[in-house]
């Protein structure tokens, strides 16, 4: 139990750091560390497959993509700076992001502690009442049977959504390079 609560405390620290940090790169790294902690919590709940999936996707794949996008935008910002377009963003260079009031992020520990105190008073009795509900004990089938036999229609829907998102990304990131070349000529 102690190990479990320590993991939750570490997760809270990582997530608050990822929200409060100004540098987007450090925020993405902190979120990846938070994903690692989430996967460890899943292991303590005896859910190893979900933990491995979380570790491989959310802690490895997503930070790479987010950091790649940040660096891409950062490179564009540096190009803007070289060309003299300084009015695009507030802080150019590595922290390319809009100018905003940092106090909103700095007061996050205060807000979270306030919510924690209020939640301890109001949420805990509600959750205690929820925990007294009767449990279903006889439905714990194998994960393979649940995924392949019980949720095969879900799998078809997931493949459809993946195809749809591939099409959507193609349409979102479609830049009209050919037309510009023709117009320049």
């Amino acid at each position, binding site marked *: 139990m102690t190990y479990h609560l320590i993991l939750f405390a570490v997760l809270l620290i990582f997530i608050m750091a*990822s929200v409060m940090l100004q540098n987007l790169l450090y925020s993405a790294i902190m979120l990846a560390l*938070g994903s690692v902690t989430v996967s460890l919590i899943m292991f303590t*709940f005896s859910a190893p497959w979900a933990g491995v999936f979380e570790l491989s996707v959310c802690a490895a794949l997503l930070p790479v993509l987010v950091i790649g996008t940040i660096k891409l935008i950062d490179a564009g910002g540096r190009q803007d700076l070289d060309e003299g377009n300084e009015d695009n963003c507030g802080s150019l260079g590595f922290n390319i992001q*809009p100018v905003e009031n940092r106090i909103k992020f700095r007061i996050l520990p205060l807000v979270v502690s306030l919510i924690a105190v209020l939640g301890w008073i109001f949420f*805990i009795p509600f959750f*205690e009442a929820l925990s007294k509900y009767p449990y279903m004990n006889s439905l714990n089938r194998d994960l393979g049977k649940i995924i392949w036999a*019980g949720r095969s229609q879900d799998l078809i829907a997931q493949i459809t959504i993946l195809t749809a998102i591939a099409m959507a990304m193609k349409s979102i990131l479609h830049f009209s390079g050919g037309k510009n070349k023709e117009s320049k000529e």
Partner: protein
Amino acid sequence: MITLFSVDWYLISIIFFIGLYCMLVSRNMFKQLLGLQIMSKACVLAIILCGAATNNVNLSQAIAITMILMEVIAVLAGLGLILKAWKITGCPDLVKLSKLKG
């Protein structure tokens, strides 16, 4: 006597609130995506916790895997939209999006 189930739900609700707060106060689109990811992590943890509490871990694992997949898809689409918005406005700022014409 407070059970571990209640304490876990309490901590998960705090994590969800942090993600919600991040999405509410930030103008940066990357921070919006970050808040979405934090909220999604809280929901995945809640699903796993429910499965562990009802002795149905395998079903909750299957749903959690689906949800992680959906999270990845949402974040990828969001990153594509951020790139497109940056191409148009020059900055990943939500306020600048309201000044679009045409």
